[in-house]
């Protein structure tokens, strides 16, 4: 039932680029390992090798002492190694049951044994604590539910070693707690778990041991009990991360209200939401997944129908029907879904950066020279790192893609910026850069709205935080009341 793994000088090269420089370490069965490292450290590549998605260029992979060369993920799965992807590998049009058994269908002779698959799927869903019908189509699920389906799928394959890549990125705190309970149970059953996350508090609370990678190499390992969060962060970055957050500069007393929303109602999502944000203020939005935060702003942008509500920008009432009108009034919104809504990953960096301002700058031909200059400036200003400025956006690491997306949505010089989960799936170094940028935006006199599921982020970054629960505004917490306990109690509506 148990399974031990040893990486023996694993090397991986993509063309001329070497991403793994001989990684050596071993994992004992039945433990929960935290794999730490910034984006680009090689964690994901190493895990893909372990799960059979990539083949090493050199070195050996030993599973239970036997050298293995997996031709594909199926062979790794046969040994009980399952990788839960950061980006979902689900067929949207199929049902949960069909997804769970995709490629491993139960058969009765020539026909599918749907009844047995359905009941097995229901059992797996119950294990992960997802109360939905196994016949529901995956396309109808919200992101957090899809994540749980991925985990259920791995469980159905009788995994003995489970690799989870940022599993909590899209989960609310309640769902996260359930996931950790599940991990503890699996561990007690002898399953080895490799857990990858940028959330160091989760690492601290849920792993037995952390393994640190940096620049394609194994750096060190330590028992989780022996080190604290600060030490983990320092090990990852390889330098002191003195402070993630800069001290907050309160907006000037006379700072005008730049953005005001009153009585916003989005059918099925948000009821009677009102708030205002002043120039120089960082205003947070907290709440559980599905509380209606994203939907509220999509409705403000005109991407979703709203049945009531007034919007004022810079003291003037405005009628916004689409993102373009919003931009013309000085409001831009960066979606939480970077690849699906934020960036054209197949297009180049310049095309992405100037996408929203093409028409403004065209006279009438595209200003390609100006675009190149703007890209050079953005690369410097936002600290975007890439191999080649002519590459497609998809070849950037997550953190750098996010910086590019921020640059894109700031390129039109908006007065009000809405950033939805601005640091999701981003490493510590990039996170700190983004926090510094948010402070800078506020200091320049803009109104900045940050929607975040990370409590520490809301507390460290925002002057005030609005908390939604079930589409209703529960509270607006000011500096004096901004604590994890307050945020959680309002978000879960368990305040007495």
């Amino acid at each position, binding site marked *: 039932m148990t399974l031990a793994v040893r990486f023996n000088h694993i090397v991986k090269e993509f*063309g*001329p*680029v070497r991403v793994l420089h001989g990684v050596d370490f071993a994992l004992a069965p039945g433990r929960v390992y935290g794999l730490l490292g*910034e*984006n*680009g450290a090689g964690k994901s590549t190493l895990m893909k090798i372990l799960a059979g998605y990539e083949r090493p260029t050199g070195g050996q992979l030993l599973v239970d002492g036997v050298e293995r060369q997996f031709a594909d993920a199926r062979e790794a799965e046969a040994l009980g190694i399952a990788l839960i992807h950061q980006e979902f590998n689900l067929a949207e049009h199929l049902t949960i049951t069909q997804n769970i058994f995709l490629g491993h269908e139960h058969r009765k002779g020539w026909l599918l044994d749907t009844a047995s698959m359905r009941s097995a799927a229901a059992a797996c869903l119950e294990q992960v604590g997802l109360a939905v019908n196994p016949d529901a189509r995956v396309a109808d699920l919200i992101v957090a539910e899809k994540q749980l389906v991925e985990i259920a799928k791995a469980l159905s394959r009788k995994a003995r070693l489970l690799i989870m890549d940022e599993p909590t990125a899209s989960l609310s705190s309640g769902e996260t707690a359930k996931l950790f309970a599940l991990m503890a149970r699996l561990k007690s059953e002898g399953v080895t778990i490799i857990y990858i996350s940028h959330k160091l508090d989760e690492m601290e609370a849920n792993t037995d041991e952390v393994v640190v990678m940096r*620049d394609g190499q194994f750096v060190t390992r330590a028992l989780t009990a022996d080190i604290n969060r600060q030490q983990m962060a320092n090990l990852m970055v390889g330098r002191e991360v003195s402070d993630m957050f800069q001290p907050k500069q309160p907006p000037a007393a006379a700072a005008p209200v730049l953005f005001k929303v009153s009585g916003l109602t989005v059918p099925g999502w948000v009821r009677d939401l009102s708030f205002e944000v002043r120039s120089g203020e960082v205003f947070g939005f907290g709440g559980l997944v599905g509380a209606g935060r994203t939907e509220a702003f999509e409705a403000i942008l005109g*991407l979703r129908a709203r049945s009531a509500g007034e919007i004022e920008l810079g003291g003037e009432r405005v009628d916004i029907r*689409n*993102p*373009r009108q*919003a*931009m013309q009034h000085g409001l*831009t*919104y960066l*979606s939480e879904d970077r690849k*699906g*809504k*934020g*960036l*054209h*990953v*197949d*297009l180049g960096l310049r*095309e992405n950066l100037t*996408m*929203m301002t*093409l*028409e403004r700058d*065209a006279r*009438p*031909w*595209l200003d*390609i020279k100006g675009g190149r200059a703007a890209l050079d400036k953005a690369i410097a200003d936002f600290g975007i*790192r*890439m*191999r*080649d400025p002519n590459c497609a956006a998809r070849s950037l*690491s997550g*953190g*750098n893609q996010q910086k590019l997306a921020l640059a*894109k949505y700031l390129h*039109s010089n908006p007065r009000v910026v809405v950033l939805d989960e601005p640091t999701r799936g981003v*490493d510590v*170094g*990039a996170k700190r850069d983004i926090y510094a940028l948010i402070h800078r935006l506020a200091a320049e006199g803009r109104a900045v709205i940050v929607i975040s599921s990370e409590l520490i982020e809301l507390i460290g970054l925002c002057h005030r935080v609005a908390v939604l629960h079930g589409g209703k505004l529960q509270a607006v917490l000011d500096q004096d009341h901004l604590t994890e306990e307050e945020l959680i109690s309002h978000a879960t509506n368990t305040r007495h």
Partner: protein
Amino acid sequence: MQPTPATNAAPAGFSFERLKGLGPVVALVLLCIAGAMLNPDFATFDNLMNVLTRTAFIGIIAVGMTFVIVSGGIDLSVGSMAALIAGAMIVMMNAIATGGALGPVATVAAGIALALLFGAVFGGVHGVLITRGRIEPFIATLGTLGIFRAVLTYLADGGAITLDMNLSDTYGPVYYQSVIGVPIPVWIFLLVAVAGTVILNRTAFGQHVQAIGSNEQVARYAAIRVDRIKVLTYLLLGICVAIATILYVPRLGSATPTTGILWELEAIAAVVVGGTSLKGGSGRIVGTVIGAILLSVIGNILNLTSIISVHLNAAVQGVVIIAVAYLQRGRR
């Protein structure tokens, strides 16, 4: 953080990637060499102009089709649309000539203006059906394909609509006349291709078309007026169809229920052979032009040589389409 390599050298395989993009050019050059070897008449200026003139109709439509396909759409109706525009144009011009209010030149000019108007309206209707009506482009244009052709057949009463003889004499030079030795349709084809290239690569509109085809959601969030741009691509294609029709009508001086049959497939084939993905997102007008020429060179060579029957033209074209697609596979 990722280490930044010291060099900005192009990644390996770059030149090979380049070569794949040149697939249609390579195919065209090989065909031309083969043609010249098989029949000395092939490599003459007259024959070149002949091929280009015949290519002009499909080529002009294919330029418009490139915009639609790059934006992630499709238009199956262009052949029927050309037939209906041709029929309607001839009926109108004959009516004006019978009325006698305008001279022949003014009548032809009015006919041309009407054709452009029809093309723009038909294209615009497609765009509105697809965006406002949220009907799949395939279905919407499959519907109008039937409608356009049926209306033409009705107008022609199952036979042919023929242009008035006097008007034919006035209008004929638009197809048959040459300027500096090059036939007018070839000039127009060149003009449309150049304009298309500039619009697709050098304007905000062109960039938005590519952005929508690459990922419509991202484009929507990036403050691009997605619906408006889509309508414009279909409208542009409608105008291209009208231009092709304007050049086509003086050639035969009539429109019949078989006018423009299968043009949609030839135009789509030219676009795809030219390297534009049917999934949208990226494409090149130059490629489309080469694709269109490639397909008509095949017919020309079969006409000039007797190795393969002309009746197998479509089969040879099919083989070439598949071969070029094979060369381009896996570029994404």
